[in-house]
């Protein structure tokens, strides 16, 4: 495994946000699903070294980021897209990415600018390089933040809800970009979009109340709902049910009256795994 997480714990006052999380990450894309407050962002922030865990350990590429002496070496191999990445509004798109490139120790001016142009082109912002950040749309700012995470071809890419604010076309382009990344690197992707996980991820982790509720392949997660997904003409009493486009009702759980078995999806497995938590998330 490239990265191992053992008994990672984080508390805020009386709330345990991460509760002894164990995780193994290999090269490829791993999706992290979970309702709000499940601990996804806290886990990603610990891996991105922007938040110190209270206990537990992370080992990546033979490095321990908790050790100040090894943290810089770890960060050299890291790309991070934060949930709220922020930006200096008076900078241009080029200046913003270049600023992060400098913080990533790219001191050679010519090579640095070449790398900035490369990542801006990767996220389709090459023609916006001279536009001020304050004039960019929300989706463009998200892509700008993604460009920063791609600087220097990092070995570990941590992306916290990267598809927020992207339109369907941009999401398709993002998936293509991410699948290229995942072919060579370890990518950890937190998202609320089960379809992103189905389309991209080799592995999926479902978090619930600070712990790992599931860890496996997307097919395993879908299989969790085997024999528990139904289509019926009349509304069932199940909490986890909804009306589909063809007028029938899809429900999860016990078979409703007149229910026909349906092919389970990742979303079905995820909803069943989380039960009522998913229904209120």
């Amino acid at each position, binding site marked *: 495994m490239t990265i191992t997480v053992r008994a990672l714990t984080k508390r805020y006052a009386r709330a345990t946000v991460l509760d002894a999380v164990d995780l193994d990450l290999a090269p490829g894309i791993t999706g992290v699903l979970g309702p709000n407050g499940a601990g996804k962002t806290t886990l990603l*922030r610990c891996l*991105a*070294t*922007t*938040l*110190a865990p209270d206990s537990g350990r992370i080992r990546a590429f033979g490095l321990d980021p*908790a050790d*100040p002496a090894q*943290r*810089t070496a770890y*960060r*050299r191999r*890291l790309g*991070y*897209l*934060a*949930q*709220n*990445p*922020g*930006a*200096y509004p008076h*900078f*241009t798109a*080029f*200046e913003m990415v*270049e*600023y*992060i490139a*400098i*913080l*990533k*120790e*790219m*001191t050679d*001016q*010519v090579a*640095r*600018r*070449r790398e*900035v*142009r490369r990542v801006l082109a990767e996220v389709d912002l090459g023609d916006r*390089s*001279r536009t001020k950040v304050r004039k960019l749309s929300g989706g463009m700012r998200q892509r700008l*933040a993604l460009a*920063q995470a791609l600087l220097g071809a990092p070995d570990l890419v*941590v992306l916290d809800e990267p598809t927020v604010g992207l339109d369907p076309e941009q999401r398709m382009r993002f998936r293509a970009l991410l699948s290229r990344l995942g072919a060579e690197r370890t990518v950890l992707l937190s998202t609320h979009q089960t379809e992103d996980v189905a389309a991209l991820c080799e592995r999926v982790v479902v978090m619930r109340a600070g712990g790992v509720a599931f860890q496996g392949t997307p097919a395993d997660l879908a299989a969790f709902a085997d024999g528990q997904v139904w289509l019926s003409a009349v509304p069932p009493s199940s909490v986890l049910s909804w009306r589909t486009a063809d007028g029938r009702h899809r429900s999860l759980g016990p078979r409703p009256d007149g229910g026909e078995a349906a092919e389970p999806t990742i979303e079905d497995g995820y909803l069943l795994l989380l039960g009522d938590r998913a229904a209120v998330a």
Partner: protein
Amino acid sequence: MTWHPQMTWHLPAGLAAQYARGETAVALTLSIEAHLMKCRPCREAVPYEMGWIEQSWAGIEDLIDRPRRGVAERVLTMVGVPGHVARLLVATPTLSRAWMAAVTVVLAFAVAAARLTEGIGESAQAGAVLPFLVAAPLLPVAGVALAYGRWADPVHESLAATPLAGVPLLLLRAGAALATAVALTGVATALFPASLGLTAAWLLPSLALTAGTLALSTWLPSVAAAALLGGAWVSALLLLNGQSLVFGPLAQILYGLAAPALALLAVFRHRRSEGYR
């Protein structure tokens, strides 16, 4: 660019090669280039060096994208600060126009008050200097507190995951904030009507309080550290009821000793700190 199929002449192969090597005279070069603009067969026949073209194109792209440097950044690079360090320094949140304007206004008021009391009497003038001496050390403290951290920098979460995050960037930005505050206060000092010895008495307390803020910020958020030390500073002045004890020779010696000791403690503590920054 339009190709005119009725072109009546084309570049001879020898001339095309000469042009590609850059060996043609200026007038002839201009004529050839005017022709190449209109004639695709000739453009395709010129034996360009792809390496040269790619290098030139990269140079043009670099020229187009090159960020326009502000005055502060240009001055820093002129005095020998490496370009990438200058870029980091000018993006220090503390050095925003709003903070600089606030510092300038505070100092301008202090100088104006002292100037207005000029000639009224020594005690009145000393009374006008005191607010300046109290406020001046707080300016770099506030600047340092707001130079680094998630409460001050909208990009902190992103930059905290980079190799230069933590001590290197904190010290760089704190240094920039301190230098700016000291330079502006220094200018104000020179404008004071009172003696330089009296009006410059803020310098060592400034350095000691700033280093103390940096050291204390390894235990507390830097804004809280600055508020605590700033509060202690003002309280000490109020309790001791006067400037002779707080700004006297003995106190200055103590500030002079405390400043480097606290700076060393700050660096030591930040380097050992287990908390990520």
